[in-house]
């Protein structure tokens, strides 16, 4: 029973689900993710645990509808069940012991996976400076949640429709220029965002941690499909990460690998939409199955 208890639309196409998963909630640590399947013929997709509540036995997932699986998930209402949920996976991330200045810089959806770490870091007694970036004001969410656990919060949009008119990485650069001394920066979001933040940090000699999101299958180190290159070495993001020292990440390889199935994914979504309109598709290689 993996019931969806509450479902909220945060911004168009981004939804927040609170899911009943007591065993996972008990073990979830910042940095962990789950794999979800919503259909017997569906894919296994990784989703970061955006929050968890051991008392209630729930975890929170924030999902952007881009492909077929996330779109199908979007059709599930409160009370419905996920088909499969496995986790918590990935390495736990320890918060710094306290007394440090930590920057959290999110891009787009990255604010959700960033939340548990920000919270842990704040509770451990560090100074938390959060920068939230998004393409425009319609894509911003969880600002209040982040503000509640940050000593300083900056909001930026690429088009200037809300807050500072800049990329989040630019805001980070400006803060550093104006004298903020970061002990560490954590950057989560699309690859170009993490790459830009990493460049800023490298320039100023600040340690930077990024959370990588390659394509995954099993999430347990069995297939090697999630491999990424960090400081010239191959790692499996599902078990060795997903967080890595940004200064060593081969971001270009990562974005190329993320694009492996773009055309298939578009086809799959199209098929789904056609099937919703009543068209049937059948397997040619093994018609019996």
């Amino acid at each position, binding site marked *: 029973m993996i019931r969806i208890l509450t479902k909220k639309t945060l911004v168009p196409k981004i939804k927040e689900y609170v899911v009943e998963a007591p065993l996972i909630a008990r073990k979830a640590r910042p940095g962990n993710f789950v794999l979800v399947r919503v259909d017997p013929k569906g894919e296994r997709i990784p989703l970061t645990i955006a929050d968890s509540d051991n008392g209630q036995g729930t975890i929170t997932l924030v999902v952007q509808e881009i492909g077929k699986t996330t779109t199908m998930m979007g059709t599930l209402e409160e009370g419905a069940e996920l088909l499969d949920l496995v986790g918590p996976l990935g390495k736990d991330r320890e918060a710094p012991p306290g007394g440090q200045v930590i920057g959290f810089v999110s891009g787009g959806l990255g604010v959700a996976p960033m939340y548990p770490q920000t919270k842990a870091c704040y509770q451990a007694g560090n100074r938390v400076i959060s920068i939230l970036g998004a393409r425009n004001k319609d894509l911003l969410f969880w600002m209040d949640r982040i503000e509640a656990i940050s000593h300083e919060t900056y909001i930026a949009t690429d088009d200037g429709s809300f807050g500072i008119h800049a990329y989040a990485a630019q805001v980070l650069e400006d803060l550093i220029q104006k004298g903020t001394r970061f002990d560490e920066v954590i950057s989560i979001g699309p690859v170009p965002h993490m790459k830009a933040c990493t460049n800023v940090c490298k320039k100023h000699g600040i340690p930077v941690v990024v959370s990588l999101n390659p394509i995954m299958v*099993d999430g347990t*180190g069995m297939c090697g499909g999630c491999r990424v290159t960090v400081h010239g070495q191959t790692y499996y993001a599902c*078990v060795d990460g997903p967080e890595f020292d940004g200064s060593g990440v081969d971001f270009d390889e990562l974005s190329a690998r993320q694009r492996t199935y773009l055309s298939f994914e578009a086809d799959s979504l199209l098929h789904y939409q056609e099937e919703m309109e009543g068209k049937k598709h059948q*397997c040619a290689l093994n018609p019996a199955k």
Partner: protein
Amino acid sequence: MPAREPKQRSHTFEEVALGFGVDQAIEEANRCLSCKKPKCVDGCPVMVDIPNFIEAVRNGNLSDAAHILKEKNSLPAVCGRVCPQENQCEGLCIIGKKHEPVAIGALERFVADWEAAHIDGSSVVHPKPFGKKVAVIGCGPGGLTCAGDLAKMGYRVTIFEAFHDTGGVLRYGIPEFRLPKEIVDREVNYVKSLGVEIELNMVIGKIHTIAELMESGFEAVFIAVGAGAPVFMGIPGENLIGVYSANEFLTRVNLMKAYCMEEYDTPVITARKVAVIGAGNVAMDAARVALRLGADEVTIVYRRTEAEMPARLEEIHHAKEEGIQFQLLTNPKQILGDDKNRVCGMECIRMELGDRDEGGRRRPVPIEDSEFKIDCDMVIPALGNKANPLLTRNTPGLELNKWGNIIADEKTGATNIPGVFAGGDIVIGAATVIEAMGAGKRAAFAIDRYLRGASLDAEEELSGLPAEKQGA
């Protein structure tokens, strides 16, 4: 054994080998000499009473034959299809010295399939297990065998499986055309009918540790998590798009059914020319799957010669029939990519066989300046599996060898932690279905003794499995 036409079968995932009919089976059974001291049984890791089951086939007593098989082997329909018989029972068959050995594997398969078709096992009601609780980690052949045997003894067994489906490698590794998933379902359902609970989506080491399982009431644990970590070569270009570990390629196709992309959502790249590196069962499977997905040309690249290829003979034979190419005495040096980071070829070097290594195999050595390029747009390293550390890393105190395999007693599966047993690929390294099953069987006996407070080493009481056979 009869098989589907190579031309036709190389485009479908339907089973290749067709199996014997009754007349053929009896004719084959008649070839058996019913040796007084049967060598074949020595070759079987679980010691199936081969002459007797063949005798029953000869007499047309097929349900007796099935019964004799199942006494020792709980998954005969699987083993009849995937065991390397030529190195085991059939390899020792006396007739095989001069002629073709008796087709023991094909007969085993025939009997198991006959039983499934004619005997309704679902009507048999098994007593509900009542005893102490045992946890089995991993739902591959090792875990299933151990769980089934323990349930038959009355223990309450729960299998914890990381994937969303059962069967381990039988499900995600070995393709449909060699081992139909219907058969895996059948065997799993049998184990469930014995009262075994299966909890899917449970990655032990993450959601529960072994210590937590034991605190929560499981009095013994059997670890059968398989090998489960792919081996890459460490050559340049391995992270290009179009390079798949065999595990990923086969999981996408077999478990996630990427071969039915019209119906299923998990994609797999379709390639024109595929190079598969290695020559074991995994490599043959990957090559034949790639062919069925529509590749024009599939080549096995192997650094030794045909004589050293570790795959089952039947698989090599079928692969050749289907048109798989073989580049032997060839070793990859680097995988080449285009400006979009996609595979566009592979640089290789020719090899020759040099001196023998400790194992007696002649070592392949590169021939200087013999580099050449293979044209391909997909590369699948199929070099076997090594121990996956996910569980062992989260089990403090568990003794491992230098490769990360769990150290377990050959006869009992006992590890250094009391109550924790292990077997299958995680102990011996990537091996065979039947060896994993043998380990599961021996561990079930040992766990029974452990839970009754008896010494694990009292060999004579290990229910008919003479000690010298147990380390097979």
